[in-house]
C-alpha cells in the first residue's frame, strides 16, 4: 500500500534531523495558522500564489532562495564545527549523517539558493529593463517557480521522512547506484532535481523568448542593458544544458529503478560516462549562476559611478564568448580521469582562455569607475567586494586549469576554496547587490544602509577568514569531505575557517536585521520618485513599486540608457513631456495552474521516491487533468480601463513634477559635476 514507506522512515533515533525537522514544521504550522487567523489567506492566494506577474514571481523566487540559503548555511555550520571538533576524535556527526550534510549543502546551495536568487532577480528586472509588461509565458513562469519550490520541498522532506543522499552533490556512480545506496536518499535527490529541472528549463525558454521577441519599440539588441544580455546568455545556457542534466539523471534513475546498466560496474556499464555527461551540464551551470551576477554588477557599477558602462560592446561580446566557451571546458572537472595528455591539454587551454573575456569584464568595470563620482551605497560595496575577491578566485581557477597542477590539488580543500571563492564572490555577492539595488523598486522603500553595510563588511571579512585557511590547508594536502582527520598541521587552519564561519553568522544576523529594520522604518525610507539611485535604465522611470502593467505606455527607446536621456531632457527643460494618450491595457489573468501542477508533482515525486505506484498514477493523472483544464480556459486576459491607467500614471507624474520643482538646481549640478563622458556625444 505505501511501498517502502513505513514508520521506521522517521529517524526517531537521530535527534539532530528530528529536532530540526520538528522546529521547521512548527514554524511552518505557526506561519500558516497566523496567515489563516489574520485572514491573509485570500490575499496570499490571489496576489501571490496564483499571481502570474513577473515582479511577484521574482520576489517569491528570491524569498525561496534566501530561505534555502539559510538552510544551506546551517549545513555549512555543521560541517565546519564537525571538522573543528573531529581532530583525532569522532566529532558529533556520525559519518552517514555527515555525508548527508555535505551532499545536502551542495545540492541546496546550487539548485535551491543560487538558482532561485538569480532567476528571481532576472524575473523582476528583465521585463522592466526591456520596457515591457510581462514575460512571454506568464503562466509557465508561475509553474516554473512552483516546480522549483516542489524540488526544495522534497529535499527538505528528506530531513524527517527517510534520509537524504550520501553520494555528494553530484551523485557519482557506482556509489549512487542501487547496489551501494539502496536507501531513498539518492531518489530524493534525483526526483527533486528532475522536477525542479523542468521548472528551470521552462524559465530558460521563457526568458530567451522574452528577450529576443518582446522588447519595447526601439530597444534594439545593442541598446539592451547588460543585465538583459547576461540574462539572455544564462538562459541560452539553460536551454542547452538542462536537457543534459535531465537525460543523465534519467539514465541513473533507470539504473536504480529498472536495473539498467548505464553506469553500473557490471553489465558493460560506464561510470565515467556519467561524470562526462553530468559535467557537460555542470560547467555551463557555473556560468548560468555567474553571468546574471555579472549583469547586476554592470548595472550597479554604472549607476553608482554616475557614468555609462565602459566598453558596452566588449561587455556584450565577452558575455556571449563566455556563453560559448563554457561548453568546451567540462573535462577540467576530472583531469584525473586519464583521458591522456592531449585531451587534457585541449581542455586546460580552453579553461585558461575563458579567463580572457572574464578579464575583459573586470577591466570594463574598473574603467567605468575610473573618473566617475562613486557613491558607496550598499549595492556598490557588494560590487567592489566582488571585483577584488572574484579576481582571486579567477586566478586560482587558472592555476587549476593547468592539468599537472590540478593533479596535485584535485579534490583537495584548495578546490573547495576555489569554487566557493567564485560562487560566493560572484553569485552570492551579486544576488545581494541585486537585492539591495532593486528592493526599493519592488517595495517602494529602501533597505537600511547601516545594517546593509555591516552585513557586507562581515560577509567580506568572513569570506576571507573562512576560505583563505581552506586554500592553505588544501595545499597542505587535506582532501575534501573528511568527517575526521589526524594531521596536526591542518588543525590551526581548520579552526581558523571555523572562526570565519562564525563571522559569517554575524553577517547573516545583519542581513536579517536589515530586512526587519527596513520594514519597520519603511516610512522614512520611502522612495517617492521611483528613482532612488539616480538610475540609468528604464525600470527607474516607472513608479516604485511598479503598477501591474509596468508602463502606462510602452516607452519608445531612442538610444542606450534611455531613462538617463529622458531624465536629462526633463531637467534641462524643467518639465515632463506631454501627457500621453492613455489606452486600456490587457494583462494575463492570474492562474492557479502552476500551484496545482506543483501539488501533483510533489505527490508524484514523493510516491516515486517511496515506490507507492498507485499514487504515482494518481499524481500523473491529476497533472494531465490540470493540463486539459488549463487548455479549456476561455478568458486568458483581463483589461485595465484607460481611466485607471491614467490615474496611476498621473500620480507618478505628479511625484516626478514635485521632484523636478524641488530640485531645480539639479540641472546646474549636472552641468558642473558630471563627468565629461556622461555628456552628450559631440557636446562634451
Amino acid at each position, binding site marked *: 500500500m505505501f511501498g517502502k514507506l513505513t514508520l521506521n522512515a522517521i529517524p526517531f533515533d537521530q535527534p539532530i534531523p528530528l529536532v530540526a525537522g520538528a522546529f521547521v514544521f512548527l514554524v511552518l504550522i505557526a506561519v500558516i495558522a497566523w496567515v489563516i487567523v489574520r485572514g491573509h489567506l485570500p490575499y496570499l492566494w490571489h496576489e501571490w500564489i496564483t499571481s502570474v506577474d513577473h515582479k511577484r514571481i521574482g520576489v517569491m523566487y528570491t524569498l525561496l532562495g534566501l530561505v534555502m540559503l539559510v538552510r544551506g548555511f546551517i549545513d555549512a555550520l555543521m560541517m565546519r564545527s564537525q571538522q573543528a571538533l573531529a581532530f583525532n576524535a569522532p566529532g558529533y556527526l556520525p559519518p552517514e549523517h555527515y555525508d548527508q550534510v555535505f551532499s545536502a549543502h551542495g545540492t541546496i546551495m546550487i539548485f535551491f539558493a543560487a538558482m532561485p536568487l538569480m532567476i528571481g532577480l532576472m524575473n523582476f528586472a528583465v521585463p522592466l529593463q526591456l520596457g515591457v509588461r510581462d514575460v512571454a509565458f506568464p503562466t509557465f513562469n508561475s509553474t516554473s517557480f512552483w516546480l522549483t519550490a516542489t524540488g526544495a520541498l522534497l529535499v527538505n522532506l528528506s530531513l524527517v521522512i527517510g534520509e537524504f543522499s550520501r553520494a555528494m552533490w553530484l551523485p557519482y556512480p557506482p556509489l549512487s547506484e542501487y547496489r551501494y545506496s539502496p536507501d531513498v536518499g539518492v531518489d530524493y535527490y534525483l526526483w527533486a532535481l528532475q522536477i525542479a529541472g523542468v521548472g528551470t528549463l521552462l524559465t530558460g525558454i521563457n526568458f530567451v523568448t522574452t528577450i529576443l521577441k518582446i522588447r519595447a519599440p526601439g530597444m534594439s539588441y545593442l541598446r539592451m542593458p547588460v543585465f538583459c544580455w547576461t540574462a539572455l546568455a544564462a538562459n541560452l545556457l539553460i536551454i542547452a544544458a538542462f536537457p543534459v542534466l535531465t537525460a543523465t539523471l534519467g539514465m541513473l534513475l533507470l539504473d536504480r529503478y529498472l536495473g539498467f546498466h548505464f553506469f553500473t560496474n557490471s553489465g558493460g556499464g560506464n561510470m565515467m560516462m556519467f561524470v562526462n555527461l553530468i559535467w557537460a551540464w555542470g560547467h555551463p551551470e557555473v556560468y548560468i549562476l555567474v553571468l546574471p551576477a555579472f549583469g547586476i554588477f554592470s548595472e550597479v557599477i554604472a549607476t553608482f559611478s554616475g557614468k555609462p558602462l565602459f566598453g558596452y560592446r566588449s561587455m556584450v561580446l565577452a558575455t556571449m564568448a563566455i556563453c560559448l566557451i563554457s561548453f568546451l571546458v567540462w573535462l577540467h572537472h576530472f583531469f584525473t580521469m586519464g583521458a591522456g595528455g592531449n585531451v587534457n591539454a585541449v581542455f586546460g587551454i580552453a579553461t585558461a582562455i575563458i579567463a580572457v573575456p572574464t578579464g575583459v569584464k573586470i577591466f570594463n568595470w574598473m574603467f567605468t569607475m575610473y573618473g566617475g563620482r562613486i557613491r558607496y551605497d550598499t549595492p556598490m560595496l557588494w560590487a567592489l567586494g566582488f571585483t577584488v575577491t572574484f579576481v582571486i578566485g579567477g586566478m586560482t581557477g587558472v592555476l587549476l586549469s593547468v592539468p599537472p597542477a590540478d593533479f596535485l590539488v584535485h579534490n583537495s580543500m584548495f578546490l573547495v576554496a576555489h569554487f566557493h571563492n567564485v560562487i560566493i564572490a560572484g553569485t552570492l555577492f551579486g544576488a545581494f547587490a541585486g537585492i539591495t539595488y532593486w528592493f526599493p523598486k519592488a517595495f517602494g522603500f529602501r533597505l537600511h544602509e547601516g545594517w546593509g553595510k555591516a552585513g557586507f563588511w562581515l560577509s567580506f571579512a568572513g569570506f576571507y577568514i573562512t576560505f583563505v585557511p581552506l586554500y592553505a590547508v588544501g595545499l597542505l594536502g587535506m582532501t575534501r569531505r573528511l568527517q575526521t582527520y589526524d594531521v596536526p598541521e591542518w588543525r590551526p587552519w581548520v579552526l581558523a575557517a571555523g572562526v570565519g564561519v562564525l563571522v559569517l553568522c554575524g553577517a547573516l544576523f545583519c542581513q536579517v536585521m536589515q530586512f526587519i529594520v527596513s520594514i519597520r522604518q519603511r516610512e522614512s525610507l520611502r522612495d517617492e520618485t521611483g528613482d532612488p539611485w539616480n538610475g540609468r535604465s528604464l525600470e527607474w522611470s516607472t513608479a516604485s513599486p511598479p503598477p501591474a502593467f509596468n508602463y502606462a*505606455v510602452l516607452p*519608445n527607446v531612442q*538610444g542606450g540608457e534611455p531613462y538617463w536621456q529622458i531624465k536629462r531632457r526633463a531637467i534641462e527643460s524643467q518639465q515632463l513631456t506631454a501627457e500621453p494618450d492613455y489606452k486600456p491595457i490587457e494583462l494575463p489573468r492570474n492562474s492557479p495552474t502552476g500551484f496545482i501542477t506543483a501539488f501533483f508533482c510533489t505527490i508524484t515525486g514523493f510516491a516515486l521516491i517511496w515506490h507507492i505506484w498507485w499514487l504515482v498514477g494518481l499524481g500523473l493523472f491529476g497533472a494531465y487533468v490540470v493540463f486539459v483544464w488549463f487548455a479549456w480556459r476561455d478568458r486568458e486576459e483581463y483589461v485595465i480601463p484607460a481611466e485607471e491607467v491614467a490615474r496611476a500614471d498621473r500620480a507618478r507624474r505628479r511625484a516626478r513634477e514635485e521632484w523636478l520643482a524641488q530640485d531645480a538646481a539639479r540641472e546646474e549640478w549636472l552641468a558642473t559635476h558630471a563627468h565629461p563622458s556622461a555628456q552628450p556625444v*559631440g557636446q562634451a
Partner: protein
Amino acid sequence: MSATEVLRTPHPLDFDPYKVGHGEGGGHDYVTGHGEGGPASKRVIVGYGFWLFLLSDIILFSCLFASHAVLQTATAGGPTGPQLFDPMSVALETACLLISSFLCGLSAVAAGVRNQLWTQVFLFFTGIFGLAFLLLEVRDFTSLVARGASPQVSAFWSSFFAVVGCHGCHVTVGLLWLGTMMAQVYFKGFRPNVMRRLVCFNLFWHMLDLIWVALFTIVYLIGEGR
C-alpha cells in the same frame, strides 16, 4: 520625464553612450531590423518558444544517442543488436510514422481553411498511424525481451531501450495531446489560441519524425552495419 511618451523629435540632448544606432534611430517607422518594432505578435512568440523547447528536446535525445554510441559494443557477452533486430518491423514502423506525419501536415492545411470535418479526419488518422507505430514498437520490445535482450542484460540493450523507449514515450504523450487538440478544435473551434496550439502540435509531431530518422540511422542502420 516619463519614459512612456513617444519621443520623435530630435533633441540636442539626445545621445547614445554606446555610439550605436547612429543615423537610424529606433522609432516604429524606420525599424532597422533588430526587433526594434516593439513586442512580436502572440503567434510569433508562441511559435518561437515552442521551437526553443524542441531544441532542448533534441539535446535530450542527443545525450541518449551519445550514450548509445559509447555503449555500442558493451554487450557484456549477451546478444548484439544485429542478431536480434527485425528490419521488416522497423521499416513498417518508419512507414507508419512518416504517413502519420504527412497526415498531420494535411490536418494543418485543413485547419488553415477552417474546415472542421477534414481537420478532425486528418487528425484522427494521424493518431491511428501513430498508435499503429506504437503498437508495432511494443511488439518489437516484447519479442526482444522474449529472445533474451532485456535492458537488464547489458549496457548496450539498456541504452537501446532508453533511446527508442524515450521516443516511444514522446509519441505516447503526443497522442494524448492529439486527443485534447481534437476535442479543443471540436468544442472551441478555430479560435486563435487553438490555432497556435495546432501549430505547436504539428511542430512536435514532425520533430518526432526527425528524431526517428536519426534514431533509424544511428541505432538500426549503423548498428546493423557493425
